[in-house]
C-alpha cells in the first residue's frame, strides 16, 4: 500500500479533540480570529474519556470555599506531591467553566436558591450522559475551527527545541499528513493498557480509562525530549468488580461502607481519601480478607432505582449487570477491586512538565488535561480550565509566520510506514499482551499488589526494550492496523519512562497510588526555581 502525502498549514493546532482540546478551541475563537485545526483520531462527537458520559463535575469550589481550599485539599490528598502554582491557576477557573458548560446545554442540578447542588463541597450534580456531544456541537458552530476526524498524530516536527508541527496518518485512508502550525496544543489524554488489564481475555478493553487513549502525546513528547514529571504516580482506581464502573456514587451517594469478606468495615482503619480507599482494599486482599465490597444491602427500592439511572448515565454496564443477574444493590453488596494502573494527569500528577501557562519544555508546545502533569484532581472541569489557559497563552505566543523545518523527514517516514504496510500481516496483539504481562509482574501490576523491587524493574526494562525491537518487525494490512502498531510502540516507550520514574523514587509516600519520590537520589531531576517547594517536593 502506497501513502499519499498531504500538507496542511494552520495557526493553532490541537492534537486530540477530547475534553480539553474542544474547550481550548472554543476559548481560542473567543479571543482570536486566527484558524484552529483539531486533529482527532476518532470523531470528536464521542471521543476520549467523556464517551460514555460522566457522573458529576468532580472539581468545583462550593459556597464558602476558595480556590486555595481546593489546592490545600488536593495537596493533602496527594501527600504534598503536587505543584501549588498549577493547582491554584486551575482551581481559579473551575466555577466559570462549569457555568459555561451549563450555557452550552449541560443539565446541572440546582438547589432551592438557584445555586448548583453540591455533593460535598467539590462536586456538582449533573446529567453527564451527553456532555461530549454538547462540546462537539459547540465546536462545530465555530467557522474558524476545522476538524480532521480519524487522523492519528504520531510525531512532532521540532527545530531547535521549538515545535513547528506534526506528522499524522489517516486511520481509514492511505494518507500521510505534514501539518505545520504557529502553536501546538497536546490534549491526547493519559494512557491505559500499559499493564495487564482486569480482564485479560475477550473483555480486555473493559477498563476504566479509555483503551483508545494510548499515551501518544506523552510518547511523542518523550521522543522529542520534553520533560515529564511524576510518571511513577500511577492511578489505581477503586472500581466495581467486573464492570470497572465507578464506586464514588455508591460510597458517597447512598453512604455504602467498605467491608471485607468477614463483614468488617475496614475503611475506618485506612481512611477515606481516594487513595486510602484503594490502599485499604488492596491491603485487605493481600491479608486474605478479601473479596471486599461496598455494603449496599438494605438501601431502599427508590435508592436502587436512582442508582440504576445514575449508572446508565455514565457506566451502563453496571446497570446491565444488576438487571441481568436479578440482583440489584439493595439485595447484594457490590464487590469492589483495584484496577490495573493507568497514567493520567487528571487524577494524579503524572504527565508533561508545564509552567503556569501550560507550556511544556518545548517552545510553542502546550499541554492540557490528562496529558499534563503536576496538577492532580483536575477531572473534567480542570481539563477545561487548562485548555482555556493554554489557548490564551498560545495566542500570545504565536508568531505571524509559520516556520518550516530545515529538512523534511516526510520521505523517510513514508518509506518506513510503507514498510509496515507491505509485509504480510503480523498483528501486534501478541506483543501487546507480552508487554502487559511484563509490566504486571515486574513493574508493579495487580498480580503483585502493585509492588516491585529495583531488580524487578531492571528485568522489566530489559524485556520491554526487547519488545520494542521486535515491534519493528510487525506488519499491517490496513491503516488502522498501522495505527495499532504506532500505539503499541507509544506504550512500549511510555512503559520504559514509567519504569525509570519508578526506579528513581526513593521513598513511598502515597500508598494508594504506590508511587512517589522525595527529592532526588542519584537521578537527574532538573530543578526549576519556579516550582521549587523545598523540603516538600520538587517537580
Amino acid at each position, binding site marked *: 500500500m502506497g501513502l499519499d502525502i498531504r500538507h496542511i498549514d494552520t495557526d493553532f493546532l490541537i492534537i486530540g479533540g477530547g475534553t480539553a482540546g474542544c474547550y481550548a478551541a472554543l476559548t481560542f475563537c473567543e479571543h482570536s480570529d486566527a484558524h484552529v485545526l483539531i486533529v482527532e*483520531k*476518532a*470523531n470528536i*462527537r*464521542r*471521543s*476520549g474519556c467523556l*464517551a*460514555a458520559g460522566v*457522573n*458529576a463535575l468532580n472539581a468545583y469550589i462550593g459556597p464558602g470555599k476558595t480556590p486555595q481550599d481546593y489546592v490545600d485539599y488536593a495537596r493533602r490528598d496527594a501527600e504534598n506531591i503536587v505543584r501549588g502554582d498549577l493547582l491554584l491557576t486551575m482551581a481559579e477557573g473551575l466555577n466559570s467553566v462549569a457555568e459555561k458548560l451549563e450555557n452550552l446545554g449541560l*443539565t*446541572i*442540578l440546582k438547589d432551592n436558591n438557584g445555586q448548583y*447542588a453540591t*455533593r460535598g463541597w467539590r462536586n456538582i*450534580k*449533573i*446529567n*453527564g*450522559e*451527553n456532555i461530549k456531544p454538547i462540546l462537539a456541537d459547540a465546536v462545530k458552530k465555530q467557522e474558524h475551527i476545522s476538524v480532521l476526524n*480519524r487522523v492519528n498524530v504520531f510525531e512532532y516536527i521540532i527545530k531547535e527545541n521549538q515545535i513547528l508541527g506534526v506528522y499524522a496518518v489517516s*486511520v*481509514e485512508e492511505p494518507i500521510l499528513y505534514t501539518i505545520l502550525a504557529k502553536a501546538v496544543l497536546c490534549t491526547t489524554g493519559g494512557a491505559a493498557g500499559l499493564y495487564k488489564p482486569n*480482564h485479560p*481475555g*475477550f*473483555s*480486555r*478493553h*473493559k*477498563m476504566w480509562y*479509555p*483503551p*483508545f487513549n494510548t499515551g501518544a502525546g506523552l510518547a511523542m513528547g518523550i521522543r522529542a525530549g520534553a520533560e515529564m514529571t511524576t510518571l511513577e504516580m500511577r492511578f489505581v482506581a477503586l472500581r466495581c468488580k*467486573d*464492570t470497572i464502573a465507578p464506586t464514588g*456514587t455508591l460510597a*458517597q*451517594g*447512598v453512604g455504602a461502607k467498605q467491608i471485607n469478606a468477614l463483614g468488617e468495615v475496614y475503611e475506618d482503619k485506612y481512611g477515606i481519601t481516594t487513595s486510602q480507599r484503594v490502599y485499604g482494599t488492596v491491603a485487605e486482599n493481600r491479608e486474605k480478607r478479601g473479596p471486599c465490597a461496598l455494603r449496599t444491602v438494605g438501601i431502599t427500592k427508590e435508592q436502587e*432505582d*436512582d*442508582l*440504576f*439511572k*445514575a449508572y*446508565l*448515565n455514565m457506566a*451502563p*454496564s453496571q*446497570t*446491565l*449487570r444488576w*438487571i*441481568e*443477574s*436479578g440482583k440489584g444493590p439493595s439485595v447484594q453488596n457490590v464487590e469492589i477491586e483495584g484496577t490495573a494502573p493507568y497514567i493520567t494527569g487528571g487524577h494524579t500528577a503524572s504527565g508533561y512538565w508545564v509552567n503556569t501557562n501550560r507550556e511544556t519544555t518545548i517552545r510553542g508546545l502546550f499541554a492540557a488535561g490528562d496529558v499534563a502533569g503536576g496538577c492532580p484532581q483536575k477531572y473534567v472541569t480542570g481539563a477545561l480550565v487548562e485548555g482555556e489557559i493554554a489557548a490564551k497563552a498560545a495566542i500570545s505566543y504565536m508568531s505571524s509566520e509559520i516556520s518550516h523545518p530545515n529538512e523534511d523527514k516526510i520521505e523517510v517516514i513514508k518509506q518506513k510506514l510503507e514498510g509496515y504496510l507491505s509485509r504480510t500481516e503480523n498483528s501486534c496483539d501478541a506483543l501487546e499482551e507480552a508487554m502487559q504481562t511484563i509490566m504486571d509482574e515486574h513493574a508493579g501490576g495487580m498480580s503483585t499488589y502493585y509492588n516491585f523491587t529495583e531488580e524487578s524493574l531492571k528485568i522489566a526494562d530489559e524485556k520491554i526494550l526487547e519488545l520494542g525491537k521486535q515491534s519493528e518487525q510487525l506488519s499491517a494490512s490496513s491503516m*488502522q492496523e498501522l495505527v495499532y502498531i504506532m500505539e503499541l510502540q507509544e506504550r512500549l516507550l511510555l512503559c520504559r519512562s514509567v519504569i525509570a520514574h519508578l526506579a528513581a523514587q526513593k521513598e513511598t509516600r502515597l500508598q494508594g497510588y504506590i508511587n512517589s519520590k522525595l527529592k532526588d537520589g542519584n537521578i537527574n531531576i532538573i530543578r526549576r526555581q519556579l516550582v521549587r517547594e523545598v523540603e516538600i517536593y520538587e517537580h
Partner: protein
Amino acid sequence: MSIEIRQNLCIGCGRCITVCPGSLIKLKNKTATIPKPERCWGCASCIKECTAEAIALFLGEDMGGLGGKMTVRRENSLLHWTVTKANGTAQTITVNSLDSNKY
C-alpha cells in the same frame, strides 16, 4: 464487554461508525459490522446513536456475563434502556437527560 450488531435490523446509516471512540465499527455490504469485538470499551455510544435498535451491549462471559442484551431507544430527551435477559424477559428503564443524577 462488547456489542453485537443485528444485521437484519441495520439500515446502514453509519451513525454508529461515526461515534465509536475506538473506530471499531465498519460498513460492509451496507450493514455495520464490528470485526474486532474484543477491542470494544463498552461505552455504549453506538447503541445510543442507532435509531434502528440494531446494536446491543452484552457483558463477556469472562467478566461474568449471563447473556443479557442491552438496547436503547431515544425519544427527544428521553432514553429508554431495555435489558433483555437470556430467558427472554425484559425490563425497561427510562432516563430523561434533562434530569440530573440524584447522586
